[in-house]
């Protein structure tokens, strides 16, 4: 059953209809095969780009769609529902444009943003390092200023779209002042000295390439510095506030897909002479799954509406990320239960959904870190 949405305008309804059509015709049929082959769906991102979906929440004057987060996130949810790796990729791409759109100078935006939002290019966001995950302020990739360029040396870890992306919004260390010694560079894929390590061998999201990003005296023009020197961590965390809403929406989409699969199966599978959906033990499980999906959706939409109105939304975004990703983990696990032995095989998608649901609890701030953010807001209120 497709999600029943309240959308603010007819254009938003048409946009969601287009998204569902693309998801149904162009994404869903390929997902299982590409995930199995660990094949990155570059062409599918291009198609989304051509349809105008790679710049939705950014201003029209730079080629964006000027769409509120309330609508953009529901687009993301529909895409993730058909194919989680593509949903996550779209969310990461959108987040990778944040620093330039919100902290670039007028000249920088005019120069790079239209191409980044235009649909042909794909972005990545490089903050984590192997020793600096939750403690991002400990990052040590060095950028040394030399004339009108930075020479960057170090290794970024866990980079979604590593080696696939056209640009990398990268946090680097420009001084030893801890969290205030970090700066943000917009790094082009063709930068000499930049390379990607072989992809990580992951439990899920196998069609989404995750690699280390290696900088060996990579020369980045100084005019690619976004914001002030030293503002990098602040920009990175601000990007993550919005990015987390994207991950929440993707998780709801994934959970919805698992719920739909479980309901369809429970209607047609009979045991003891009746469809298993007629056993209260099964139907209550499905009811709880539906409640988890819909309450998680309501939670991210509430945060999105605050963002759209220019209200603070950091606590709500962390709550949405925590609630939605935990819901997805539970719902996908229960979907495997509803399908019984079939659910445990690769002939049905729910075991993959369950593997895919694990990582949203980890990236863009682990759920422990979300609790830290929420608790800090409670303490200082």
């Amino acid at each position, binding site marked *: 059953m497709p999600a029943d949405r309240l959308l603010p305008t007819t*254009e938003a309804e*048409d*946009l969601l209809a*287009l998204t569902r059509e693309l998801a149904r015709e162009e994404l869903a049929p390929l997902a299982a095969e590409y995930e199995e082959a660990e094949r990155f769906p570059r062409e599918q991102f291009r198609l989304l780009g051509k*349809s*105008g979906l790679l710049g939705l929440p950014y201003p029209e004057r730079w080629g964006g769609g000027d*769409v509120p987060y309330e609508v953009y996130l529901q687009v993301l949810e529909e895409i993730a529902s058909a194919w989680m790796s593509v949903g996550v990729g779209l969310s990461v791409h959108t987040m990778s444009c944040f620093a330039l759109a919100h902290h670039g100078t007028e000249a920088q935006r005019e120069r790079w943003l239209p191409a980044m939002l235009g649909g042909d290019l794909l972005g990545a966001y490089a903050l984590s390092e192997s020793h600096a995950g939750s403690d991002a302020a400990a990052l040590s990739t060095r950028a040394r200023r030399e004339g009108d360029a930075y020479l960057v040396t170090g290794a970024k870890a866990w980079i979604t779209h590593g080696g696939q992306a056209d640009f990398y919004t990268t946090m680097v260390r420009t001084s030893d002042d801890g969290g205030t010694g970090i700066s943000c560079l917009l790094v082009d894929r063709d930068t000499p000295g930049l390379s990607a390590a072989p992809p990580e061998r992951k439990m899920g999201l196998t069609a989404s390439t995750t690699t280390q990003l290696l900088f060996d005296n990579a020369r980045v023009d100084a005019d690619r510095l976004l914001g002030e020197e030293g503002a990098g961590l602040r920009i990175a965390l601000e990007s993550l506030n919005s990015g987390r809403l994207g991950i929440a929406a993707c998780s709801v989409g994934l959970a919805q897909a698992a719920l739909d699969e479980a309901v369809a199966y429970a209607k047609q599978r009979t045991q003891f002479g009746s469809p298993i959906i007629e056993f209260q033990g099964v139907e209550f499980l499905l009811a709880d799954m539906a409640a988890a999906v819909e309450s998680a959706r309501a939670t991210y939409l509430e945060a999105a509406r605050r963002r759209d109105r220019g209200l603070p939304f950091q606590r709500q975004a962390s709550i949405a990320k925590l609630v939605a990703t935990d819901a997805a983990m539970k719902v996908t696990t229960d979907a495997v239960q509803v399908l019984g032995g079939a659910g445990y095989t690769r002939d049905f998608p729910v075991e993959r959904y369950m593997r895919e649901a694990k990582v949203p609890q980890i990236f863009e701030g682990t759920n422990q870190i979300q609790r830290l953010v929420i608790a800090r807001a409670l303490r200082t209120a």
Partner: protein
Amino acid sequence: MTNIVVLVKQVPDTYSERKLSESDHTLDRESADAVIDEINERSVEEALKIKEAGEGEVTVLCVGPDRATDAIRKALSMGADKAIHVSDESLHGSDMLATAKVLAAAIGKVEGVDLVIAGNEASDGRGGAVPAMLAELLGLPQLTHVRQLTVEGGSVKADRETEEGITHLEANLPAIVSVTEKINEPRYPSFKGIMAAKKKPVETLTVADLGVDSGEVGLGNAWSTVLEASPKPPRTAGERVEDDGDGGTKVAEYLVAQKLI
């Protein structure tokens, strides 16, 4: 400049369950999601290709209830320039003749039409006769079952494909063309197209605006009546043949038993 009218019908989504209403055996349009018929997305695509190859204007024409505006917007967001929507309570239950009369009158409202593009057959009514009726009513040449189309100067060339083979046709403009699903792959709209569609003109007309007599349309004036309707019986499970090296023989034996070979 080619002035093209595309006939677009809104139909129940073939992905959802379709049924007839219990009371009058007309299509229950509320029970299923309504979408632009896929064959008409192809009709729109063909019109846009002709327009983009030279110059032209594409007008979408739809006869259907209020919510057919969704189908019209989809055609506009693909790139059509404007639309005419004939919407009138009295049209409910109209047969093909009445539909064709209304369409003919509406086409008459567009000045200097060169080409009318329709689908070969709608996926719900499946009459496959509306384009022919229109050709008769408007006195225009008709090219049916078209899988390839070119407009050159004052004429149109088409490849017509049926089970008998392919025929190459040519007609003077203005003409009516009906296309098959082989004609093209329709484009997706883009979000820009969706935003642009919002500003494109849609003229909404009633039967009276078209000068059509309301005594000629609607269920009460249909030339035939649906007396009874029942769903097709569900397909039975069929027989499964396991291939242990003798699969071919088993299939042949089955076909012989069914007197099929």
